[in-house]
């Protein structure tokens, strides 16, 4: 661990921000075309963020500010841990549990700040967001657990390296098809895409946790959202779709996966939060458990393709 690691980490943050914000902008266009609109320009997302950062803001006390900083800090630290096409700013820290629980620091910070605003709508949004997290995370973690058992490694970069070199057949999403389906559904939940977007639910609870944010706080939340999207898509990409051998392959796959979730989201209605829990604890949970039992007891999926 020396200065260069931190410099690399900073560069990763900047690149990820530019890439993901551009992609979000492009996806606004995709969603618009799905809905037969023309859509905003591809760089509109940048304009939104910088405009928010430049505006005046109001604060509801120190925990409102502290929560925002803690959230963005935690999320940025998590981004630094994500291996991109084999590159890591801090090698060896890409343990999947570390990443998924460090992500929780950011979420806790966000929840704290939102509840600290004193707006009941924000609290309702937080309650739904945490419930949603319980719903999607249990099936997903079971699949990830199965994978750690199968490959005897919990490092994101190692697991994605194991899938490379065999083309599409090497991907875990193909080797463990049920797990792959669970992962895609869970990704929709993680990203807060429809049908699992009840915690934001703009028309219903005034944007949920975000209701009191404005100015730089809102700008921070936008940046945080871009980083969080990157982490969540990257986890699924690395575990189930083989990451990428080169940076271009990685970014291309990433863009396809992210756009795919957006297209699904564009044509879906919205679950109520208890419906989302019920949904995840039925079919996806059952599929995750079946996948786990198949892998643990038969070894099918670990050695099938070679």
């Amino acid at each position, binding site marked *: 661990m020396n200065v260069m690691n931190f410099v690399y980490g900073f560069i990763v943050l900047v690149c990820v921000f530019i890439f993901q914000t551009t992609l979000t902008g492009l996806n606004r266009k995709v969603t618009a075309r799905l809905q037969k609109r023309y859509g905003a320009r591809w760089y509109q997302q940048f304009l939104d963020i910088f405009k928010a950062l430049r505006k005046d803001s109001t604060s509801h006390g120190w925990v409102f500010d502290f929560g925002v*900083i803690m959230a963005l800090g935690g999320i940025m630290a998590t981004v630094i841990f994500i291996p991109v096409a084999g590159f890591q700013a801090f090698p060896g820290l890409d343990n999947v549990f570390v990443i998924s629980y460090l992500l929780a620091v950011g979420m*806790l910070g966000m929840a704290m700040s939102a*509840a600290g*605003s004193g707006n009941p709508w924000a609290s309702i949004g937080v309650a739904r967001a945490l419930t949603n997290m319980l719903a999607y995370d*249990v099936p997903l973690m079971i699949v990830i657990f199965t994978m750690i*058992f199968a490959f005897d490694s919990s490092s994101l970069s190692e697991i994605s390296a194991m899938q490379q070199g065999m083309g599409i057949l090497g991907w875990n999403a193909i080797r463990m098809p049920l797990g792959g389906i669970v992962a895609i559904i869970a990704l929709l939940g993680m990203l807060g895409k429809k049908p699992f977007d009840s915690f934001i639910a703009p028309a219903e609870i005034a944007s949920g946790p975000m209701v009191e944010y404005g100015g730089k706080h809102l700008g921070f939340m936008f940046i945080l959202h871009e980083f969080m999207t990157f982490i969540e898509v990257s986890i699924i990409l690395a575990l189930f779709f083989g990451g990428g051998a080169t940076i271009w392959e990685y970014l291309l796959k990433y863009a396809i996966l992210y756009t795919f979730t957006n297209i699904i989201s564009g044509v879906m209605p919205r679950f109520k939060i208890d419906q989302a829990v019920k949904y995840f604890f039925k079919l996806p949970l059952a599929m995750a458990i079946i996948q*786990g*039992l198949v892998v*643990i007891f038969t070894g099918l999926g670990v050695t099938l393709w070679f």
Partner: protein
Amino acid sequence: MNLTIILAVTLVLAAASFFITRYNKMSGGFTTVLSSLFALVALFMMRGSIGEDFSIFYFNFSITTVGWYFSVVMLIAYSMTSFFNPFWMEKMMYPGSYNFLYLLSMAGTIGMFFAKDFITLFIFWETVVWSSTFIIQLGKSRKASYIYYVVSAIGSMGTLFAIMLAYSVSGTFVISEAFAGLSGGVAIAVFFTFILSGLAKIGIFPFHVWLPEAHGSAPHTFSPVLSGGLVKMGAFIAFLSVTAFPAYDIFADMFKIMGKPFPIYFLMFLGAISIIVGTLMAIKQEDAKRLLAYSSVANGGYILIGILMMDQVGFAGGMMHLINHAVASAAAFLAIAAVAYRTGTTKMSEMGGMIHRMPVTYLVYLIAIISMAGIPPMGGFVSKWLIFQGLAKDGMLFLAAAAFFGSIGSFMYVFRPLSAVFLGQTFTRDLKKKEVGFFMMFPMIILTLLSLLTGVFPNIFLRVIAEIQTSVGIDPITLANRTILTSNGYLDAFRVFIVFGFGFAIAFVLFVVRRKSRKVELMDTFTSAEFIHTRELLHYSSKFYAPFERLYDKAPDTLTAYKKLAVKVGELGGMVESLFYGHKPEKTVFWMMAVGIIVILIGGVV
């Protein structure tokens, strides 16, 4: 320092505190602080004398690493909580008895962890049970101490039975030899009855009913000890039942599930059920202390699963979770006690916005729950990580599913007191309330730093655990400098902490360089043009997860189920009574003869 001196001094001070409190309540409370701090320091220094054996009267002791580890954890909870005692003396009904029992139960735990034979262990165990029963009675409700005593008694009787049964085979009470030569059905009977007191103490389903009652209504200064300390006594019994009673050797030929003999797997499965039940029940509590009590049930499940795994990684995780949960839960209970000291309530719907009045208490609670929920960079993460890695190595899917459920569910329930008690609008009643004094803040800060220390430098603690692992004959956890190595992954907690700090620093700088924001009141929020002027009404605190709770609100409650069972047993007794003791003597004679004939007939057959 000799254990004899520690025990003698603690017991003398216990008796003394009773009389001191008569003259001056405050100094009686300070006696408990001095005594428990003395015991902590003295025990900590005893690290050098591990391996010594000695006797006092009929009691035999032996100083072991595991005893040292457990008693230090226990005394951290006792000594830190004792700082609150002097300030609660005025509110206590019998302050003298409280101080006396507080120190007596502390002495009991010390004696128990170092016991060399089961008689010593059992006597000290019962000392703790009895003294804590009477302390719980000093709190809000009597019913709580009944439930606590009944559950503890079931456990104690089970353990006593197991000890006697083992004695009839091996002829000795010495812990390391008492279980030698057991096999077959007797071994299973001894195993399940012996661990009964452990399950009861640690709050494993279906014995978890006492935790919410006792933790919830014990005096605020004793709940941290109950949850942070006394519950861990059960972990010690669980530890003994896989080491002194070599369950893995004795059950080696039995039917195995995922590589574990089925009696052990069954207990681990009970641990998994406790995690789920504890989590679900904690989510719907409306009282902060009851909520934390149910979280202890869930965390007890993790500890039990970890210890019963008896391997390189999971066992280390279970043992480390012991100290992490002790520290975090003591800190959380102390924070709630501090709030209750100022507001006089622990009901979440009756509080709000305490962060503006008690910022330090808020930070203490925040760090405690970060550790309890298993989020880096706090200690709880390291131990949960170890347990997950251990479970993943063996492929124990269902236990892992429960562990994940509990882990993510804990985000939900630990957030509730945070948002209901500390965040949101301050109630009009509490606007003039102040932060607690330094003397009460001090233990909370120490516990907070300890949570951070376990999370950033876990290897300090894992080295002791590695020693314990070596002493019971399993591979010690592999540690390299600051890194923890397992066969399927490794963790450098210090670097994770540094990178987290780096991210936080960038965010902080970015925040500070932007224009300063205007501060507005918490009543000045977006309310869709509704005018709300009552602070209390705008704070959203009760039924926080209503849509989720609705999914399982029909589920049966364990305590209610027990009560129904009790009614049924009573009815059965009533029926039998009506048969024998009716108004007609000939009926009684008839039934006596009938029973007699049946007995003779069966006796003839057998």
